[in-house]
């Protein structure tokens, strides 16, 4: 789960990581500030808000009110700005980069740091980046911060502050089950103080049961995805016109790939998951009913999910949901024959081979 900058900075505060003084503002009436100039920052879960005009400077109360309203009314990359972060304007001398994240390939946390901050880290040449993998047996210890700081060649006073910040970032990374804790830019002020200019924190959604202080943020979901999410389905909208229902993430992806290789454009990823429930099948159709599609392909390899259950679900959906497009079904595995029999009663001929079903979809949408 991505956190907004203001949420991430609240966590920074909790962990003792220096941040600029600031205020989170969700409505016009709170557009007030004492010491100008002030920075007005759109709170959106996407990068590049600066270029998109989501960061503005205000010089007095009137200016703040105007610019604040402007930014509150914006959408950035399709995402509506719902709130702002007002922050003191910083007297910036240098901008660094530092992050803690998971390196999937070594299964270790990795620290990435650079004295070239303020730009996307992907755009910084490798020679200017310091990487440090944390040994899971040894964990984080102050020497890690020293090694990174010396490799970055920081002056002593910056080094000390940097090490304190890095240690706290790592505590936050572990304490809140983060996937990413990133400060970009890590700012060195003209007076020598080091603090977090921006803050990006991604928390593992699966860990939220132990972080009850975090409420779930609305992610970047399309309307269809939001509908599916609310009803407990794993759906990803893809933009094509063939509705897909399958079971298992791998098989669902393979179904999409098969359609794509045949020149069709799938509308969605929808995984029934490891359930064996007629209503779960019916519900999937109810969601796809809201999508503009030309056909639906159901691809089931029966295991935990029995083929007869799916067949009953399809029959039920035909009755209750009223689907206006052709339905192509493939059933294989547990109770395949029973399922095929049930569908036959409802006028559907189920395939047992996945490719046959895909080819049939090609036919019906011709």
């Amino acid at each position, binding site marked *: 789960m991505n956190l907004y900058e203001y949420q991430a900075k609240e966590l920074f505060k909790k962990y003792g990581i220096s941040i600029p003084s600031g205020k989170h503002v969700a409505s016009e009436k709170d557009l007030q500030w004492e010491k100008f100039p002030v920075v007005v920052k759109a709170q959106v879960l996407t990068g590049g808000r600066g270029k998109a005009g989501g960061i503005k400077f205000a010089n007095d109360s009137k200016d703040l009110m105007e610019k604040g309203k402007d930014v509150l009314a914006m959408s950035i990359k399709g995402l509506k700005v719902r709130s702002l972060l007002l922050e003191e304007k910083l007297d910036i001398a240098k901008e660094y980069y530092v992050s803690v994240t*998971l390196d*999937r*390939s070594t*299964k270790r946390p990795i620290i990435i740091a650079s004295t070239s901050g303020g730009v996307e880290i*992907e755009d910084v040449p490798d020679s200017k980046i310091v990487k440090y993998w944390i040994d*899971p*047996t040894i964990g984080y210890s102050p020497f890690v911060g020293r090694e990174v700081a010396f490799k970055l060649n920081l002056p002593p006073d910056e080094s000390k502050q940097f090490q304190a910040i890095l240690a706290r970032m790592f505590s936050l990374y*572990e304490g809140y*089950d983060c*996937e990413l804790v990133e400060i970009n830019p890590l700012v060195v002020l003209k007076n020598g103080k080091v603090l977090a200019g921006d803050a990006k924190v991604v928390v*593992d959604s*699966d*860990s939220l*049961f*132990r972080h009850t202080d975090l409420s779930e943020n609305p992610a970047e979901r399309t309307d269809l995805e939001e509908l599916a999410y609310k009803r407990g389905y*794993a759906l*990803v909208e*893809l933009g094509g016109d063939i509705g897909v229902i*399958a*079971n*298992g*993430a*791998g*098989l*669902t*992806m*393979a179904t*999409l*790939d*098969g*359609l*794509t*290789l045949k020149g069709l454009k*799938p509308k969605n*990823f929808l*995984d029934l998951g*490891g359930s064996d429930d007629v209503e779960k099948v019916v519900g999937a159709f109810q969601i796809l009913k809201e999508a503009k599609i030309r056909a639906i392909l159901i691809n089931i*390899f*029966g*295991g*935990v999910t029995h083929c007869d259950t799916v067949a009953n679900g399809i029959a039920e959906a035909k009755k209750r949901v009223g689907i206006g497009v052709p339905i192509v079904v493939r059933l*294989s*595995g*547990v109770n395949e024959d029973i399922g095929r029999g049930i569908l036959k009663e409802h006028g559907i001929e189920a395939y047992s*081979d*996945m*490719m046959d079903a895909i080819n049939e979809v090609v036919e019906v949408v011709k």
Partner: protein
Amino acid sequence: MSILVNEDTRILVQGITGHQGSFNAIQMQKFGSKVVAGTSPGKGGTEVSGIPVYNTVRDALVEKPNATFISVAAPYVLDAAKEAMYNGIDLIYILTEKVPYQDTMKIVSLANKLGKRVLGPNGPGATSPFSCKLGIMPNQIFRKGNVGVISRSGTLTYEIVNQITINGLGESTVIGLGGDPVTGMNYIDALEEFKKDEQTAAVAMVGEIGGTAEEEAAEYIKNNFNKPVVSYITGRSAPPGKRMGHAGAIISRGKGTAESKVKALEEAGVRVASYPYEIPSLLKEVLK
């Protein structure tokens, strides 16, 4: 002789009185696995389908389990895995999905230190027809044979195993690594075992988008693996930045694309199928 699980595998089911635990304990029994004990704190002394239930893993040691099937809820998986490792269980299979990845990292790091194996979380387990099934794969799709199968997914694995079986081939062991970003065993761990296994003549490797495990496996195959490998990679049509069902199936910051994986595998001499159904014919070719 198969890998990881065989007729000597004695399975403990942690959380045996839960829905998943009891259902799969019975399915494993039906397959022919030796399910020797279960745990469920407070329910010690009862039984599930003739399998004795104990309060703690320590108590269950009287049944001499050497592998465990963990199906407790996600918040309790770390504790269950620690309990199993503390009590000397060698193979830890975790069915549970949505385990926080830092918990998985702790489990994997501990297992490495203690010389234990972890399979999963969020995978279907391991099956060696017909000596032992540790996991949740459907019982009826297997035939004993010489193809080792490694996969990160569940149903797609069954699909491909089924294809292998109905096309007259058979499996030595089928391994589901799990769909999370961090799992215990990875492709290379499984390949190392298949390399040593006399029963295995070829390997089918089923991959998906996300991470670089397939690329690393390709590197390993190129330099260290002497048996033929065929592969199928799913997620070619997945858009970047979206999790495709599995927590681990995501293309992020340009990493983890199907193209990259297919390319790496082909460069390692692996024949890569376009559709799952092509796997058996590719296998027949490389096994000639």
